[in-house]
C-alpha cells in the first residue's frame, strides 16, 4: 500500500521557489530519508506533509486520502522535532498523553498506551520527571515515545539527531533503525547527514534546489549516483570527480585522465555500455576514494590496474590512511590500509577498482555509465 504520495508539489514564497514539482511515492513500512544540504527544501516538504505549511500547488496523499485541506491533527501522523519540542511544564507522562487527551481517549486506554511505549523505549523510570531533568538522549526518547503512542500511519522525523553529541547520535541512530525493524512503521526522516541517510534508509531521496535529484535505495544511490550533485553529496570523503576523455579501441571504452600529458592515465572500462555518441568527447569521471588503494591491493576480478602517482598529502585516521594524489594531474583522494604511509612528494603505486567508475555528461551532469 502507498502510505504517502506526493504529486507535482510546489512551494513558492513571494518570488522564491523552494520546492519545484516534487513527486514521491512511499510504500507502507518504508524508511525514507530526505537528505540534502541546508536550504534544499527538505524541511519545507516535511512541514507540508505534516500540514504545518501549505503547498502552493500539487497534492499530498496519506493512506490514499488527499490531505491538502486536512489539519495536522487529522492526518494520522506523528512528528519528532529537532529540538524535541517537549512541553516544559508537563511531566514525561503528560507529554506522552497530551495528544490522547486532546483526542479524548479514555483514561484507561491512555495508561495502557503509555505503559506500552515506556516499556518499548525503556523510559519507565522517567515518567514522573520534567523535560528539564532529562539528558539529551532521554529527551529524544521521550519525543519518540510521544510519536509512537499515537500509532500513526506515518512518522515524520525532522533532523531528530542533530542536537545530540556524536557518540549519542550513533547510538540513537541504531536505536531508531532497530525500532523501525521491530514495529514496521512507515517513516519519513529528514536529515542533512548523508551517513544517517545511508545507514537507516530503505530508500533515500536526495534533494537539492527544491528538486528530488534521485530516489532510490542506499546502495543504488551510492553506486549509481544519478548526477554529479548526488555523487559529491553522498559519501565522506566524497567521490573524486575529474575531467577525462572517453575513447574507444578494439577492446571497448577507455577513459583517459590528463590526455596528452606525459603522466596520462588510461583506464579500460570492462562491462560498461557507453553510448557511442560520447566516444571521443570530454566526460566527467567519478571514482570513490575506496576504489583507489595501495598498489598491492587486489580488487576481485581481473588483473589489477596499478598506476604510479605523486603523493601530495597523507592523513592517517587510525582505521585507514587517506592519501591525496594526482592522477594525470587531477587531484584524487585514496583510502589505503592504515599501516602504509606513502612518502610526501614521492610517487607511489596505487591500485584502482575500475569496475566501480562512474561517468557523467559534463553538460547535463547526469550519469551516463
Amino acid at each position: 500500500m502507498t502510505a504517502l504520495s506526493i504529486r507535482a508539489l510546489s512551494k513558492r514564497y513571494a518570488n522564491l521557489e523552494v520546492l519545484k514539482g516534487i513527486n514521491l511515492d512511499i510504500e507502507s513500512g518504508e524508511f525514507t530519508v530526505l537528505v540534502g544540504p541546508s536550504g534544499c527544501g527538505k524541511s519545507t516538504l516535511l512541514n507540508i506533509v505534516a500540514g504545518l505549511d501549505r503547498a502552493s500547488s500539487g497534492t499530498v496523499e496519506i493512506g490514499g486520502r488527499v490531505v491538502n485541506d486536512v489539519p495536522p491533527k487529522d492526518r494520522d501522523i506523528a512528528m519528532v522535532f529537532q529540538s524535541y519540542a517537549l512541553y516544559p511544564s508537563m511531566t514525561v507522562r503528560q507529554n506522552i498523553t497530551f495528544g490522547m487527551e486532546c483526542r479524548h481517549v479514555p483514561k484507561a486506554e491512555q495508561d495502557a498506551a503509555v505503559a506500552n511505549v515506556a516499556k518499548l523505549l525503556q523510559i519507565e523510570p522517567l515518567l514522573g520527571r520534567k523535560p528539564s531533568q532529562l539528558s539529551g538522549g532521554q529527551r529524544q526518547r521521550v519525543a519518540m515515545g510521544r510519536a509512537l503512542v499515537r500509532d500513526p500511519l506515518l512518522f515524520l522525523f525532522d533532523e531528530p539527531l542533530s542536537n545530540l553529541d556524536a557518540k549519542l547520535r550513533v547510538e540513537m541512530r541504531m536505536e531508531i533503525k532497530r525500532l523501525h525493524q521491530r514495529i514496521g512503521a512507515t517513516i519519513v526522516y529528514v536529515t542533512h547527514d548523508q551517513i544517517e541517510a545511508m545507514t537507516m534508509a530503505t530508500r533515500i531521496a536526495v534533494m537539492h534546489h527544491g528538486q528530488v535529484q534521485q530516489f532510490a535505495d542506499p546502495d543504488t544511490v551510492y553506486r549509481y549516483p544519478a548526477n554529479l550533485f548526488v555523487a559529491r553529496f553522498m559519501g565522506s570523503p566524497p567521490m573524486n570527480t575529474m575531467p577525462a576523455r572517453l575513447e574507444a579501441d578494439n577492446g571497448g571504452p577507455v577513459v583517459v585522465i590528463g590526455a596528452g600529458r606525459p603522466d596520462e592515465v588510461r583506464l579500460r572500462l570492462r562491462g560498461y555500455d557507453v553510448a557511442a555518441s560520447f566516444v571521443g568527447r570530454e566526460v566527467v569521471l567519478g571514482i570513490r576514494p575506496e576504489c583507489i588503494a595501495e598498489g598491492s591491493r587486489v580488487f576481485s576480478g581481473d588483473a589489477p590496474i596499478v598506476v604510479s602517482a605523486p603523493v601530495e598529502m597523507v592523513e592517517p585516521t587510525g582505521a585507514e590512511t587517506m592519501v591525496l594524489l594526482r592522477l594525470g594531474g587531477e587531484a584524487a583522494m585514496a583510502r589505503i590500509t592504515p599501516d602504509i604511509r606513502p612518502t610526501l612528494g614521492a610517487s607511489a603505486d596505487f591500485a584502482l577498482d575500475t569496475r566501480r567508475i562512474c561517468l557523467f555528461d559534463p553538460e547535463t551532469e547526469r550519469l551516463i555509465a
Partner: protein
Amino acid sequence: MRDQTFAPTRILIYLVVSLIAAAWLAPLVVVVLNSLRTNEEIAQASMIGWPKHWAWSNYAAAWSGFCVAETCAGIRPYMLNSALVTIPATIFSTMLGAIAGYAVSLWRFRGDSWIYGIVTLGLFLPQQMRLLPWTIVLRDIGLINTLTGLVLIHTIQGLSFTTLFCRNYYVAIPHELIRAARIDGAGFFRIFWRIILPLSAPILIVTVIWQFTHIWNEFLYGVTFTSGQQQPVTAALIALSAAVADIPQHGVQSAAVIIAALPTLLIYLLGGRYFVRGLTAGAVK
C-alpha cells in the same frame, strides 16, 4: 596596590550615589515625618522637623474619620474604590495582553505585525489626547462616573503595555512547541492554557506589578470621569487637600498620602526582584 587606586574612586561613587538617593528620598522622609506630627506642631515649627510626640492618631483620622467632600469617612471608601478598579483592570489587561502577545508572537496570520504595531502604538499616545474619545465612549455606553468605566479604560489602555511585554517574552519560546501541539491536536486556547501559560509566571508577575502600580497611581482619568463617592483614592486625595480651606491639616494629609501609597509599595516589595529579573529576561542568554 589595587586598593589604593581603587578606594578614592569608590568613595566618590558612594558619595554621588548617596546624594542622589537622598534627593529622591527627601520628599518621602518629609511626608512620613509630617504624618506623625500634630497640626499645631507643624504650624508652629516648619514643614520639616522631627516629631516631638508621635501623633499616630493622624493615621486613624486619615483612614476613617476625616471629611472629604462632605462625608466624614476618611479615605477608606476611596481606597476601596481604587481596589475595585485596580484589581479587575489589572487581571483583565494582563490576561488579554498575554493572549494577544501569544497570538502575535507564536501564530502567523495575515496582518499580524500590523495588529501588533497598532496595539503598541497606544504606548505613544499622550493621555490627554485620549480624554475626549473616552468621554464620548463612556457617555454613550452610560458608564460616566462609574468604577466600571474606569475598569474598562484601564483594561483597554493597559493592553498596549501588556501585549508588548508578553509578546517580547513569548517570541523566545520555540515555535516547534506550537507545531508539536498542533499535531497532537491542541487548538489555539488549549495550547495557550496548557503549554504557554504555565511558562509565563515571570512575565505575568512583571505585567501585574506594572499594571497594578500604574492603575493605582493613575490620576487623570479618575479625576475626569468620576466625582464624589466614586473617586479613586488618588483623586480623593486632591479633594481632601481642597476641603481643608480653613486650617491646613498637613499631618492628616500626609498620613493619607502614605496610606494611599502603601498597596503599590507592598506589591513592589513582594515582587520587585521578579520585576527586575523579568525586565531583563532574554537580554542575556
